[in-house]
């Protein structure tokens, strides 16, 4: 198991290196800079700003310096918030974004798995069609449409939950549901398909023949294997969840990394964009590792093969 983890980490480092390199050069090669403003800055001011952030050095030197700093865990100063470092800003936003992301994932699993199993068990009956119809709707409604609709109903009309902001668990509910329902729908569809596939297998028949109660057969024996495609979907899902949170954070004024990222990209805040892209990628690599581990735990054959 340790060797498996080590090998995965060995893949991860070059990936992160490539992400940093590509993003760095993409940002620098493009026209326009962080100090472009409506009113042009006096030359002397701009020169001194550029010198302060070492933008006047040769590109390769800047690159080498940046990478060396990143290795020490220093993501550099933010161009737009001069008294803050990128690290500080991300440290502020990351717990918020992670809370939102995990809550959304919880919603997705809590709704999607039971719905998928229920639909599979009642295959081709009204409940199945209704569930799958809803799931289709779920993957078709964009989160920036769903979010405001939920706000109108639950915050403005019913007044149960706050419209936007961050601070208590009540603030988490609407953004998490907005973000999570799409994945709930997707997971529901995956689970149903996988359950239908698994239920025909011999080991399920054996479990039934042994007299195991139907509940146990479905939830213990079949679901465990049916979870495999769902688990492997979680990797790419996490990637989309992160990017989805960019929109949801904007809608609900959630002070997470996603909002910093969009503002930073629009302002060409180089270091901030680089920093967020790196942190996002690192998060995803870590999450994918977890997914692989879960996969091995669910299906020992994979662990052996690894």
């Amino acid at each position, binding site marked *: 198991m340790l060797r498996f983890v080590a090998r995965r980490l060995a893949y991860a480092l070059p990936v992160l290196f490539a992400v940093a390199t590509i993003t760095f050069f993409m940002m620098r090669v493009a026209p326009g800079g962080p100090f472009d403003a409506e009113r042009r800055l006096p030359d002397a001011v701009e020169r001194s700003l550029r010198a302060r952030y070492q933008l006047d050095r040769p590109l390769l030197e800047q690159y080498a310096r940046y990478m060396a700093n990143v290795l020490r865990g220093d993501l550099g100063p933010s161009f737009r918030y001069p008294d803050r470092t990128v690290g500080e800003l991300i440290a502020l936003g990351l717990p918020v974004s992670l809370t939102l992301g995990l809550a959304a994932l919880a919603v997705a699993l809590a709704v999607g798995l039971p719905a998928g199993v229920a639909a599979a068990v009642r*295959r081709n009956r009204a409940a199945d069609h209704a569930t799958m119809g809803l799931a*289709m709707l779920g993957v078709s409604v*964009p989160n920036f449409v769903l979010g405001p609709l939920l706000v109108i109903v639950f915050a403005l009309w019913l007044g149960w939950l706050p419209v936007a902001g961050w601070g208590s668990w009540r603030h988490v509910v609407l953004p998490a549901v907005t973000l999570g329902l799409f994945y709930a729908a997707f997971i529901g569809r995956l689970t149903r398909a996988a359950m239908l596939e698994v239920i*025909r297998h011999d080991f399920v028949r054996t479990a039934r023949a042994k007299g195991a109660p139907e509940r146990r057969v479905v939830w213990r024996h079949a679901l465990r294997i049916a979870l*495999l495609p769902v688990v492997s979907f979680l990797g790419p899902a996490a990637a989309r969840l992160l*990017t989805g949170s*960019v929109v949801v954070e904007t809608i609900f004024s959630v002070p997470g990394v996603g909002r910093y990222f969009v503002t930073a990209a629009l302002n060409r805040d180089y270091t901030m964009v680089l920093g967020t*892209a790196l942190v*996002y990628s690192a998060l995803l690599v870590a999450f994918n590792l977890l997914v692989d581990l879960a996969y091995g735990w669910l299906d020992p054959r994979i662990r052996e093969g690894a």
Partner: protein
Amino acid sequence: MTVRVEPLPAAAAAESRPAPSALGRLAANRAALLSAAGLLLLVAAALLAPWIAPYPYDATDLALGASPPSAAHWLGTDELGRDLLTRLLYGARVSLAVGAAATVVSLTIGVVYGAIAGYAGGRVDQVMMRVVDVLYGLPFIIFVIILMVLVGRSVVNLFLALGAVEWLTLARITRGQVLALKARPFVEGARALGASPWRLLLRHLLPNGIAPIVVYATLKVPDVMLDEAFLSFLGLGVQPPMASWGSLAAEGAVAMEVYPWLLLFPGLALASTLLALNFLGDGLRDALDPHHDEGRLEAGG
């Protein structure tokens, strides 16, 4: 792979008859047919927008301002007094065009990449597919956002950028098809006759493996339309005065408390179109590829 579901009595009876053709299976799928009809209507309406839209697309009526749906403006107007139905019809052109064009781009990249990997096999294939696995795990929309900010927010850049990141699943499918067909006798035969690798790929492998590729390309359209809407919503996609459904919904979301129709109708247009595309894609897949294994491909199992 075997057929994976126990046939119910009705299905079993159907299976005792000769297997219906792909077209027959599609025709039996009412949701897919209805979706196809609706989409055709939508495409026609988008193409004919300049002639059927009730108002010119840039006509403003500042005195009217934002008004709720009425006889003169069926879907209401925005703050500048622009007719929402007109804007939605023109927005459909942008949204559909980006969806189609980005899908073509991703289809091209995915098929070329997947075909090379599948045909080459061995180490080349392993490395190429490993790259795809790694790319699956990266936050690609983030790079699209960076790209859009850097190279400028034009519609062409938008579909190029989206196509450049949405090809992974298509590459996997194409590779799978090429790998599976490569070992078949007719390909062996063609090779024995001295056909070049390109000829093998273009004349024998791809034409025979095209069905699932086309199906997944269809399912890609709603994906990229969603991406476009997402970017336009953030202000990184289509720029005013041009509008897509995503940017219209973004404008509507700002004012949703006072003018809810400005969010409701673009959202409805987008959701129902995506729904239809998804139903149609699913229907096509069931018809052409009855043994598909949902999840494996998208999820990379």
